[in-house]
């Protein structure tokens, strides 16, 4: 399941989708909105996606991961729109027969999602706003 949605993400549902009776291990990454960035208070974030391409790029990442690890189930859900601190922006879940693979595959997927998938966030502070990582001067965002 690959989902780009404006609605709050149901983590349990993502995990259920990725789970599988033959798997013993599910690793899940949950990315949430932090209440601060470089020492400034984040009031809210705006997430935007090029949806059709984002789904395609996530699909490619999953395909790559499937060749590297024995994925038995997986699910990726990314939220767009306005998010407040504490809200869930992304959930990646993968299940594999053995646990080390579940960690490695999940990390590979979220790492590549952050590098290649056309989704953007703008942090809105009390005194301004900024598209994250857009300019060379911007401090690289490393959640």
């Amino acid at each position, binding site marked *: 399941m690959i989902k780009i949605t404006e609605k709050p993400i149901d983590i349990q549902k993502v995990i259920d989708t990725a789970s599988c009776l033959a798997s013993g291990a599910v690793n899940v990454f949950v*990315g949430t909105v932090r209440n601060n960035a470089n020492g400034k208070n984040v009031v809210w974030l705006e*997430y*935007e*996606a*090029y949806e*059709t*391409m*984002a789904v*395609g790029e996530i699909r490619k990442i999953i395909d790559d991961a499937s060749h590297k690890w024995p994925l038995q189930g997986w699910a990726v859900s*990314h939220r767009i729109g306005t998010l407040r601190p504490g809200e869930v*922006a*992304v959930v990646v879940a993968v299940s594999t027969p053995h646990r080390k693979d579940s960690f490695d595959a999940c990390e590979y997927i*979220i790492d590549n*999602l*952050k*590098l*290649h*998938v*056309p*989704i*953007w*966030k*703008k942090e809105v502070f009390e005194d301004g706003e900024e*598209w*994250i*990582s*857009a*300019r*060379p001067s*911007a401090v690289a*965002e490393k*959640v």
Partner: protein
Amino acid sequence: MNRYRIKAFGITKDFLGGKEAEVEIKGDTVAALRSELMERYPGLQGLRSLYIAVNNDYAEEGRVLGAGDEIALIPPVSGG
């Protein structure tokens, strides 16, 4: 001259003045389109990177653009 409709995302919307723009260029490659866009919207030059997607895939500079192609500007992504 070739006319293309461009989708803008993230910070590039600020430079193009909206979610879409139309440009006319002499060439018909991604590289030609890039030069024209950089000249017409100098704000794009200040980005850390700028990819151009064609039909939902990252496109190489030499790619020839067709009339029905969906073309989009991809500034540095920051999902997750």
